[in-house]
């Protein structure tokens, strides 16, 4: 197992380098101008100056190598400095965003907590809903519960989040009067610090809508996987063995079958997790959660190549890592799988 992981990690490094190059080239070649946001009144020669100041004057390969160096050398130094109070970095140039002119890692670090909170909650709720729904749908296949579950999950999948999100806003924030206890905020207050019970309640309340939208989306997908996996396992011989041992239905389904059915589902979930980090672009935008997804969208719209490159590259690292984790999880959950 360990050697498997090590081996995969070793192949991951060239893969990631290659991915970073491709990402860089895509961003480099795609049209779009970090200065597009600036008013048309700014004359061209000024634009040119600004562009030079952004470092866009260098040829692409130098910028790429610079970026690599920054990503793998300078930024970790800053991180170490920040954690241990050392002074390795010594004021070296960091990866700066075109838009904010600030280190992209500061921005990312600022935003990850929100994304983790909101999207993570959405996903956890989604999983918590999906697992029982999937289990019951499979256990009572073709029952009304199953049919309705299918229907809802298809709706949940086919209606885009920009619709469900706004519908929820209209219901919970517009129709329900402000002074009602059921009224929910539509704008995520990122400055809110949880220090007391009241702020905690406020935090929970502002997370309800975005998380609900995401939960619906995730639950719709995961419950499908859960259901089919359960169906596969319910007809296995070992289920009969468990029954013959005199185990109650609860034990049979929730211990024997569920454990086996979770194996593929857990890996599917593991592969979804990188998505938590990139955040949910649309949902975050609708509810103004300052997560990574929203940042990515803004940076894309602003053609902020360093930010986009860094975020997507981190995403690539996560994808590769979670691919590996999914494989390892598979091996851990399923004792039959051995990597050697």
């Amino acid at each position: 197992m360990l050697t498997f992981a090590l081996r995969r990690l070793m192949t991951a490094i060239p893969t990631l380098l290659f991915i970073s190059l491709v990402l860089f080239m895509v961003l480099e070649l795609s049209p779009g101008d970090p200065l597009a946001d600036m008013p048309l009144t700014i004359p061209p020669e000024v634009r040119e100056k600004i562009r030079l100041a952004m470092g866009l004057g260098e040829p692409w390969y130098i910028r790429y190598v610079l970026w690599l160096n920054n990503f793998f050398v300078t930024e970790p130094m800053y991180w170490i400095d920040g954690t241990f109070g050392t002074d390795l970095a010594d004021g070296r140039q960091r990866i700066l965003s075109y838009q904010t002119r600030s280190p992209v890692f500061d921005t990312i670090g600022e935003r990850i907590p929100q994304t983790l909170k909101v999207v993570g909650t959405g996903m956890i709720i989604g999983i918590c809903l999906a697992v029982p729904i999937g289990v019951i749908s499979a256990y009572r296949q073709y029952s009304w519960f199953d049919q309705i579950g299918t229907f809802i999950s298809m709706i949940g999948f086919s209606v885009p989040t920009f619709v469900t999100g706004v519908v929820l806003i209209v219901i919970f924030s517009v129709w329900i009067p402000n002074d009602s206890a059921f009224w929910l905020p539509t704008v995520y207050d990122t400055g809110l610090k949880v220090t007391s019970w009241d702020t905690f309640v406020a935090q929970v309340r502002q997370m309800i809508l975005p998380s609900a939208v995401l939960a619906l989306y995730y639950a719709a997908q995961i419950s499908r996987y859960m259901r089919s996996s359960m169906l596969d396992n319910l007809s296995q011989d070992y289920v009969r063995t468990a029954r013959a041992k005199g185990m109650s239905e609860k034990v049979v389904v929730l211990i024997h079958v569920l454990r086996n059915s979770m194996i593929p589902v857990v890996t599917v979930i593991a592969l979804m997790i990188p998505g938590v980090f990139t955040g949910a672009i649309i949902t975050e935008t609708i509810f103004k959660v300052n997560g990574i997804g929203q940042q990515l969208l803004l940076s894309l719209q602003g053609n902020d190549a360093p930010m986009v490159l860094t975020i997507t590259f981190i995403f690539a690292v996560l994808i590769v890592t979670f691919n590996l984790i999914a494989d390892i999880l598979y091996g851990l959950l399923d004792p039959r799988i051995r990597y050697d």
Partner: protein
Amino acid sequence: MPDRAHPVLQVQDLKTVFKTRGGEVHAVNHVSFSLQPGELLGVVGESGSGKSVTMMSLLGLLPSPPAMNKGGKVLFQGKDLLKISPNELRKIRGGEIGFIFQDPMTSLNPVFTVGYQIMEPLRRHMGMSKEQARKRAQDLLELVGIPDAGQRLKDFPHQFSGGMRQRVMIAIALTCDPKVLIADEPTTALDVTIQAQILELVKDLRQKLGMAIVWITHDLGVVAGIADRVMVMYGGQVVEMSPVKEVFSKPLHPYTQALLQTIPSLRGPREARLRTIDGQPPILRAEPTACPFMSRCRHAIARCGIENPKRRELSPGHDVACHRAEELIAEAAHV
């Protein structure tokens, strides 16, 4: 010899039907038999003759739907297993009646350790503590002849060979000292040397623990080796029931006779050609009104097509379901 007056398990008129998209399948039709304490009953019959379904419906192990119980009684310790509550039934399953399934490769849960799977009924039925259960599980593994039992409890099923897995299945079936053990083709998937090991083991255990065993198999050789009595099934019915010696020396039902002739022998003269039973086993779309073996029977007469023969006792402990049993005996004697 077992005590015939007080059977541990008595099955009367059991009938099981499957509801499928293509219509009903009458898999088990009015099967009756009884099992004496300490006795080993061999069950033989063609594939699809209802051996497994019969045994599984005793304990309600068939998934329902599609399976449906359509009458009959299963008396065990004075209770009808078909009527009692699911809770009581659960206590009996695993607690009083052990079950070993056909395929050792898939019948164990792949993601739990063997130890967990053996200990599970101990903890749930007998309320043992973890330590006690482990101790007992280890004893059981030793009993079924797995070396280094203490260590192997921590292993997963896939780490065992087929024969060992089957032994684990036996250990699971034995956890709560069952009165009855039902073994559904426990050795079919194994090769001869391992099969021999398991047969020895079962003989041993039976002597040590004194339980009654139902042993389903295709292999008449196995039956000859270990059974006390033999039940021959065909088309969801019991067609013959007899002490083991008589089945081989004096088979009464034409099916049993044909069956015995199909197997080549390891010793003795080698036939030029194997005998076969021509034709197909019946698909039981409805309750048979005729003898199900009729279409393949050399001795069939008109009556066989109209009336499904009842099982009759021809000699002590030897019953058969054939209209022409007596005639055929006479004929055979004549020849």
